[in-house]
């Protein structure tokens, strides 16, 4: 028996070893690169920067976290960011539901294929291209000005919300569409045969089955909005979101510990959110 055959026979009968071998490389990577990095971020948030040399000194302090939690600027920006992310998510779900429903349950198979491509294509077009496209629409003297006779909303928070909702729309449509595809037509027919009006069928049959998919879509739009600082730079005028504060503190202000402390805010928000939706089974729908 060759070595290869012996190894193969051993692996066939030893499931634990097989599992360990399969998991070794990916787990090492994810733990070393990601978990350690996240833990280090928490540790860095507890350090401080020497105001003379600009070097990080490893004195333990809660100052950064206290600053972020109590500082008026940070509170305002955090609330603004959460509000933007929530609005973007609500807009996306409201727009995605009718489209996904039309794609999955009304359109002919042929039209369905065309629509999937039509929804997918902007997803593959670059993120920056799309943000930039809205910049060209909203720019002074641009399309929006021309169409409204100079009354374009221009750059600002509404433009940021609109652009973010535009950017993440395909990420919300696709899981909801996939979720609707899994609702069997026969179930809907049975419901109507038993006398339920359309609204009732939607509420009692479709919505409960679709819920995990909607949550999955919301994780994308909420998380992506929560960490964005580039769109707000491109179309947001002078407004700042959490991402901008992190970015300036890593770069221009050179205060990595403070940046780390600010980054803990979206981490905490996302963990609370993921924890809250874990039971819905949404994470399997991502």
């Amino acid at each position, binding site marked *: 028996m060759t070595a290869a055959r012996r190894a193969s026979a051993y692996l066939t009968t030893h499931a634990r070893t097989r599992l360990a071998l399969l998991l070794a490389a990916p787990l090492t990577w994810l733990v070393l690169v990601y978990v350690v*990095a996240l833990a280090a971020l928490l540790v860095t948030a507890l350090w401080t920067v020497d105001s003379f040399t600009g070097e990080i000194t490893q004195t333990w302090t809660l100052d950064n976290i206290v600053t972020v939690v109590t500082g008026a600027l940070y509170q305002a920006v955090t609330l603004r960011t959460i509000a933007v992310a929530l609005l973007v998510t609500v807009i996306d779900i409201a727009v995605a539901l009718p489209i996904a429903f039309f794609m999955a349950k009304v359109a002919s198979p042929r039209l369905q294929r065309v629509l999937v491509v039509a929804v997918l294509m902007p997803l593959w077009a670059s993120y920056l291209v799309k943000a930039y496209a809205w910049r060209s629409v909203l720019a002074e003297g641009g399309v929006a000005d021309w169409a409204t006779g100079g009354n374009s909303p221009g750059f600002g928070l509404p433009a940021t919300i609109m652009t973010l909702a535009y950017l993440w729309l395909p990420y919300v449509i696709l899981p909801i569409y996939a979720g609707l595809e899994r609702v069997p037509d026969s179930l809907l027919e049975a419901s109507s045969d038993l006398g339920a009006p359309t609204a009732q069928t939607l509420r009692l049959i479709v919505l409960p089955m679709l819920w995990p998919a909607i949550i999955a879509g919301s994780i994308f739009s909420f998380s992506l909005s929560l960490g*964005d600082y580039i769109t707000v730079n491109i179309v947001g005028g002078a407004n700042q979101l959490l991402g901008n504060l992190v970015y300036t503190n890593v770069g221009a202000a050179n205060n990595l510990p403070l940046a*780390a402390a600010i980054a803990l805010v979206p981490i905490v928000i996302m963990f609370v959110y993921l924890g809250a939706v874990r039971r819905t089974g949404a994470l399997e729908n991502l």
Partner: protein
Amino acid sequence: MRLSTPARVILGAVTALVLAVVYLPLLVVLANSFSTSRNLAWPPPGLTLEWWGRAFRSQGALDALLTSVQIALAATAVALVLGTLISLALQRQAFFGRDAVSLLVILPIALPGIVTGIALNNAFRTILDVRLGIATIIVAHATFCIVTVFNNVLARLRRTGTNLEEASADLGAGVWTTFRLVTFPQLRSALFAGGLLAFALSFDEIIVTTFTTGSGVTTLPIWILDNLFRPNQAPIVSVIAVVLVVISILPISIAQRIGGAEQVTK
């Protein structure tokens, strides 16, 4: 549930309207790429092909494109290997901590990009003390690309089941032979779809990239961002934007064709 005709018409109209809004800005970019205006004025005061010529001679843009492709290819390769291994482990065996592992795979994409970015920036700079550059971008991109391969392969493994693999083992094939001749051919198109998505994700990524790139390394998104606010470069950015949208048709149509072929053979 039977939808009334007005309901169907309204749903169709909403879909058409939203798609129009989705494509309108992209059409504006297309028009601007031919405009003589340097500051996105509308309607275009005149038409020119100058920007198209300048874009294809722009060394900065071409170099950035090459860098982006290299990074995306490397990150995709790593993600394909790691994503396949982890989905085989998770789908074929139940073990303690399985949910934790699957959460760990999802986390890099579920947490905002800025978190992944600053966490890795901090780890590379203060713990490992490595120089930021192409290698650090590849590591960062591969980390959040694993999930796309993982999702695709996991869904495929769920669908195919274990019958064929068991038959292969019963007929005396070893672990490796079974994987090469039975499991892998079943996974091939799922790997392609996952890999394609990973490539696109990496190619387009800007937030994590700005935190993990070093001086002198410019990916295409970074180049676009650098040039977005320069008045003379805006029309060239429009050209590159149009080219990117047009190129993106290729992977979508390939993915659709593969998906369509599978619908037929399923």
